[in-house]
């Protein structure tokens, strides 16, 4: 559960160890969030080192289940995925796909974070998982 403040708080973290990924693998981030249903912003994020594959602002909803893919772009230091700002995570969007250049040949921290606009409200990370999808061809 997010502390009663308005800073970004890490609710769960994993380390993807150097050497685990190959140049055409995909990471799948699963997260399930419960939030206060209000007009105030509740921001849920997934960070991969300095990369930000997901940053969703929730307001008048209760639940958010998100599957966010991040694929290695034939290199360990180049990734692409769907836009990380969509509330649904699927479908059409005016936003560009998410790209980043994090070096997965070294250890990379994956953090699931939450940030309130009103310290009296709540964000709970009910479940988080990082799933590695290996490319069998590479």
């Amino acid at each position, binding site marked *: 559960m997010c502390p009663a403040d308005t800073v970004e708080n890490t609710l769960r*973290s*994993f*380390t993807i160890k150097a050497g685990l990924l190959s140049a055409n693998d995909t990471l799948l981030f*699963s997260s399930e969030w419960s939030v206060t249903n209000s007009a105030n912003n509740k921001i849920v994020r997934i960070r991969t080192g300095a990369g930000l594959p997901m940053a969703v602002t929730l307001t008048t*909803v209760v639940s958010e*289940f*998100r*599957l966010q893919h991040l694929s290695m772009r034939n290199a360990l230091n180049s990734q692409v995925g769907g836009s990380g700002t969509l509330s649904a995570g*699927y479908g059409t969007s005016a936003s560009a796909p998410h790209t980043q250049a994090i070096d997965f040949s070294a250890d990379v921290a994956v953090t699931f974070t939450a940030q309130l606009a009103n310290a009296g409200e709540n964000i709970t990370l009910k479940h988080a998982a*990082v799933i590695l999808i290996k490319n069998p061809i590479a």
Partner: protein
Amino acid sequence: MSFDPVSEMEIAHSAVASSVTGTLTETTLFSTTIKANTMKPNEILAGQFVFSYTNSALTKTLRLKLGGVTVANIPVTTTAQIRRWFWMPIVSNTSQIVYPSASTTGIGTSTSAFEDPAVDITTDLTLEFTGQLANIAETIVLEQLYFRQLKQAS
């Protein structure tokens, strides 16, 4: 916390159409048994399924049950098909997390709360799809389903 590669095992799969028509009784369209202790805490039961049905104003109710507990209860009316996600993290032997039952997507945002079906995974569990009509002249078809068990680092 370190991160381990995930492995997955198929739990259920069907691409054989199964339908109900001519009755208002809730009818089983697919059923399989997940043996006791096949799934464990910190794993995920993941799946997707596709139904087609008569496009009309009358409610067609599609259900997924696990161990007799309804984990998806989807009313559909003036559409022709649905493809829905199912994603169930297993918290403990008797506690799970599922997206709100009535969702037509199984993913994204919702104004309903997550649910805990509280099935006991240490016992044999029936994974069952049913369909129920409001008009016997209409039809529900379970077109396809695919479920797998994801093992992950806890």
